[in-house]
């Protein structure tokens, strides 16, 4: 039986935006609107979707970097939402994040050694010589050398910076890592190095990943299970193999068919979606995808489909009722 590590229940994150100084009517951007899912120990859960679908918000809110508006986040059975700072700090040691932009997520005025050792100091885990040994060890783990510790981020290339970001995340021996688009800012030949590094580390340290990305090929490669998000909700979630070979939700189908394949001989049926993603501040009623769906029925326009199990996977679509 798979053991759950993180459980997300009825999870919502709204951002409020005041229209103007005089107009007190507050409107909400529903970035994430009701998520329910579980991340199991040792697995990689891929979270895909287009920009604005709420995938990054989900990642950040799980780590309580931005507390959710509603819902629960259970980490090993403990609810993180509303937890006091002291307890949160203890739990946070086990959950770390790797960010998208390796240029913006490293302080340019700190040496790489200082960046990596900062979590060790904050949590009073190591200091002095012991700390330096740990930094060297971490640099070695991510494929850098100990002399890199004295250098500043600007002296590194994008791929190397991402390695520094990963070393920092590993410093506290976490169990769970949220990786938010960790390879999308990197060059093609560097991407595969970092993807391989993520896989090696998972094996070595028994890590659990929430891997957020918009690149479906990378997600397919690295994940065990995949969740597809659209406008703040998960529309389909299941085992990687079945989800990619037989997508059931019309949005998943369209998304997969839109990816250009690096093979000029493969001709495929493309499901072209019309128009743009609707604004999350004013999402359509019923199924949020119905405005762009080719198989839209009457019921889709009014009733929000339930997220439930169909053929061994979770799906939110009226077609499978």
């Amino acid at each position, binding site marked *: 039986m798979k053991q759950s590590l993180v459980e997300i229940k009825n999870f919502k994150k709204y951002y409020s935006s005041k229209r103007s100084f005089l107009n007190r009517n507050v409107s909400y951007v529903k970035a994430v609107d009701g998520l329910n899912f579980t991340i199991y120990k040792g697995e990689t859960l891929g979270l895909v979707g287009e920009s604005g679908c709420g995938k990054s918000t989900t990642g950040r809110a799980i780590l309580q970097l931005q507390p959710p508006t509603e819902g629960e986040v259970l980490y090993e059975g403990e609810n993180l939402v509303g937890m006091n700072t002291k307890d949160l700090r203890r739990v946070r040691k086990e959950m770390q994040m790797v960010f998208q932009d390796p240029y913006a997520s490293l302080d340019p005025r700190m040496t790489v050694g200082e960046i990596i050792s900062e979590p060790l100091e904050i949590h009073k885990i190591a200091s002095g010589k012991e700390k330096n040994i740990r930094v060297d060890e971490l640099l070695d783990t991510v494929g850098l050398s100990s002399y890199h510790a004295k250098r500043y981020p600007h002296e590194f290339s994008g791929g190397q910076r991402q390695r520094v970001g990963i070393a920092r995340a590993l410093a506290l021996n976490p169990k769970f890592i949220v990786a938010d688009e960790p390879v999308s800012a990197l060059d093609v030949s560097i991407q595969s190095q970092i993807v391989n590094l993520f896989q090696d580390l998972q094996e070595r340290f028994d890590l659990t990943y929430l891997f957020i990305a918009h690149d479906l090929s990378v997600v397919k490669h690295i994940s065990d299970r995949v969740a597809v998000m659209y406008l703040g909700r998960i529309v389909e979630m299941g085992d990687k193999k079945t989800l990619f070979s037989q997508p059931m939700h019309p949005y998943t189908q369209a998304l997969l068919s839109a990816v250009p394949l690096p093979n000029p001989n493969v001709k495929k049926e493309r499901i*072209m979606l019309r128009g743009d993603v609707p604004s999350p501040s004013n999402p359509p009623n019923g199924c949020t995808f119905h405005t762009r769906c080719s198989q839209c029925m009457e019921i889709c326009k009014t009733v929000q489909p339930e997220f439930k199990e169909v053929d061994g996977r979770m799906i939110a679509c009226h077609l499978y009722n």
Partner: protein
Amino acid sequence: MESLLEINNLKTYFYSENGEVPAVDGVSITVKKGETLGIVGESGSGKSVTALTAMRLSQGKVMGGSVKFKGIDLLSLSDEEMRKIRGKEIAMIFQEPMTSLNPVFTVGNQIMEAIQTHMDVGKSKAKERAVELLALVGIPRPEQIVNEYPHRLSGGMRQRVMIAMAMACNPSLLIADEPTTALDVTIQAQILDLMRDLKEKHNTAIMMITHDLGVVAETCDRVCVMYGGKVVEESDVQEIFKNPKHPYTQGLLKSVPTLIDSEQQTRLYSIEGNVPIPGSLREGCYFAPRCEFAMEICRTKAPAFKEVEPGHFNRCWLHELDERGELDVKQLVESN
């Protein structure tokens, strides 16, 4: 096929505190009438600078070579003569549509500017044409959108506006610098579809600069692969995917995960090392430090760009030595 744009041995250098940086280091590229040529490379490979130099928009210094468009040497034109070609005969679209549109003018105004710069038409005629162009690129309600400001439009819509502006004077060459990189996949599919459509309708040649091998496979007829300011391989699109010759091209193709693979790979192939900083390499083959087949000669002498098969060019010592009978490449590749 008749050639439209001929870039010959172009060298564009930048000068910085660290000295001379040869961003484009002897690039020769030909775009034929009505074809889509893909330029593939990673950051710093010189693909954008090549295009910008051809458009005379680069800040770098041209140290040699020529750019001929329909037989006219673009590099020797006066600024005014160049302005008559730029936007009319050759148009360009960029990666980030928000930064390439002016936020204080309506999209209609910006398209009309492009029209009125090159054609002798009045304001109302130009506006009519702008609406027509917006409809052409698939923008809904073009009569209303024409009066909107760029910030009111989504990324995909903005890129459509950029394309509308570029198509304003029916250019014979469209240079597209990473046109879909900033867009989501479903929007990317729409934009690529639109570009393919326009190319067929107006017989526009496209120079597609990208790092995405999927985009190349789907849109291009021929491909040039760039590395360190040089073209390392050139061939038609079928050949490059089926039979890549240069170790860099081979590595690139092997290192991207794809949705097609039925069998599950556990590890991705990866090219060792980092993308070189432009100007850091001066000797031999620039790919040698990362190449798994690198030999002594690769580090000291630069290989020549040679036709290895009809229409397929490669810049690599492996094939040159193979041809001379000094090396058995097949055996080498198999044993590796």
